[in-house]
């Protein structure tokens, strides 16, 4: 019995090594100088240039992209992450509320129209979506970055499921007290959904922050680049130069992963709850 447990730990540690190792190496390597990395390969111990590298990446204009600083990219990422998460929650709560708590004529067809969006991810209709954005003149705007990503109904189904689990008695009681649909929504539904809103916010924030394909298409103006979008630029520099700025490339990669990783770590419980009880 004892031996099997030891074996279990060995497997788990190998798993942790495989999963976390590359991240640690990236973090450590980013604190060395480019020439040093070029000579001696990747590093597993901290070097002395942590602050220099990150200051350069965050504040130097044109470090990689010519015009913008890492700080600006980080802000864009935050706008995308928060805007997407907030938009998704508002839209889907309203729609789910209508589907669950109202009797209306086109309920069935509305339901299926929303459901269909789950079948076709954005990736299969990128070109026409881009054309539509061009027609609407929304390229290189935050609206164009965020709103089209909202055209999928994952959140709606999540809230619909949750609203269905709320006991009917609450509505009966609220109606006896004379509460209308708005009052019931604000005073009963929203407070009850607090934990769910938090969980879905975390998941959607990470999803929005990590978007790559859509920002790549929508933003050609560098002042709208997000950190994840900027990865592409890192590589173009990487390919061409003599001694590539490995350190700055890794620093930017670390910056791109720190906020979502921290959020997942800190709110781990909500995050897992939201993930396993809903869907991405």
């Amino acid at each position, binding site marked *: 019995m004892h031996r099997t447990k030891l074996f279990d730990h060995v497997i788990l540690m190998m798993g942790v090594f495989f*999963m976390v190792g590359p991240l640690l190496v990236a973090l450590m390597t980013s604190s060395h100088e480019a020439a040093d990395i070029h000579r001696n390969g990747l590093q597993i111990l901290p070097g002395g240039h942590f602050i220099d590298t990150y200051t350069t990446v965050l504040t130097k204009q044109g470090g990689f992209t010519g015009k913008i600083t890492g700080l600006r990219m980080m802000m864009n990422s935050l706008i995308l992450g928060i805007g997407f998460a907030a938009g998704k929650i508002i839209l889907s709560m309203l729609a789910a509320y209508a589907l669950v708590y109202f009797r209306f004529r086109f*309920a069935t067809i509305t339901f299926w129209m*929303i459901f269909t969006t789950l079948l076709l991810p954005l*990736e299969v209709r990128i070109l026409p979506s881009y054309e539509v954005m061009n027609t609407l003149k929304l390229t290189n705007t935050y609206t164009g970055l965020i709103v089209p990503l909202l055209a999928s109904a994952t959140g709606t189904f999540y809230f619909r499921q949750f609203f269905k689990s709320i006991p009917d008695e609450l509505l009966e009681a609220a109606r006896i007290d004379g509460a209308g649909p708005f009052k019931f929504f604000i005073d009963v539904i929203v407070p009850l959904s607090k934990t769910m809103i938090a969980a879905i916010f975390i998941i959607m924030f990470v999803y929005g922050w990590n978007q790559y394909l859509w920002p790549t298409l929508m933003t050609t103006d560098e002042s709208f680049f997000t950190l*994840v979008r900027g990865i592409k630029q890192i590589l173009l520099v990487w390919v061409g130069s003599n001694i590539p700025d490995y350190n700055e490339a890794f620093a930017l990669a670390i910056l791109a992963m720190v906020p979502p990783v921290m959020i997942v770590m800190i709110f781990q419980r909500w995050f897992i709850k939201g993930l396993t009880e809903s869907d991405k």
Partner: protein
Amino acid sequence: MTNTPSSSAMSATLAAPAAGGPWGLFGRRKSASKPPEETDAKRVQFNSRLLPYLFLAPQMAIIFVFFYWPSVQAIHSSFYLEDPFGFGSTFVGLANYTDVLKSGEYLGIARFTAVFTALVTFFSLAIGLLLAVKADGVIRGNATYKTLLIWVYAIAPPVAGLMGMMMFDQHIGPLVKFAAFFGWDLKVGLNYNDTAFAMIVVSVWKQIPYNFIFFLSGLQGIPVSVREAALMDCRSGFRRFWTVILPLLAPTAFFLLIINTTYALFDTFGVIDVMVKDKAANNPITLVYKVYMDGFRGNDLGGSSAQSVILMIIVFVLTIFQFRFIERRVHYN
């Protein structure tokens, strides 16, 4: 499989993830006799002519503009040949489709996509399951392992691709040196098979935490009484896992199979885009990447749209197939 209320209740508790999401909807629909819209309805509802439409309006508006309009557009332009300089377009019927399907290059990419999807799905599920079973088994350090193993979930695919580029770099990559130790001259970005290998490793790495989380929560949903009964009946741990635990995890595994297939087909775009570094010519790419290349680099609107429609059909058929045939074989009880 019977559709008794108890079996559906059982499936709902055991397949917590599957029953919660949109996919669970199908499960629910199958086990309940009525379509979902009717069973959803609360006994008490508001009666208002206008309000439900008001609440639905924002969501529906966005779906129409950014989902239905582009989808219809894709189908429409797949039948036309667009002038690259924007001087009108001509109706060509199915020519775009036949061109695509006759192209050896396209079929090669389709073959690679199938292999890639199968391998990524298999390995990320297998490793995720292995780690979940082990993490569920140990008592000491359980929480620590869990925290460390789910980190990577939060990393964007292109960032994961960048990490891969680093580990497989010709100058500084430790994995290249490791492979050289076994006499394997790993040349990612130059050699087709080596690049494919690196892409698969990175894509699997990125997806393991997701599967781990779901398998672990599935395992923790198995009642202690069931485990104890199994322990009494069967001494062999492996057989116990195979005959008792795995069937109970089937709903979770089924749900993950769909999610992982979708992931390998679509979400790996970032990984691939970073790893082929704009030199897609002699590197492996997937069908989604091809749509992107033809549409945005090649300016072949008709061909790209036809490919989009083909992908739509593939996703559609895959979803229907998975629900109709695979779910039937899953034991919920």
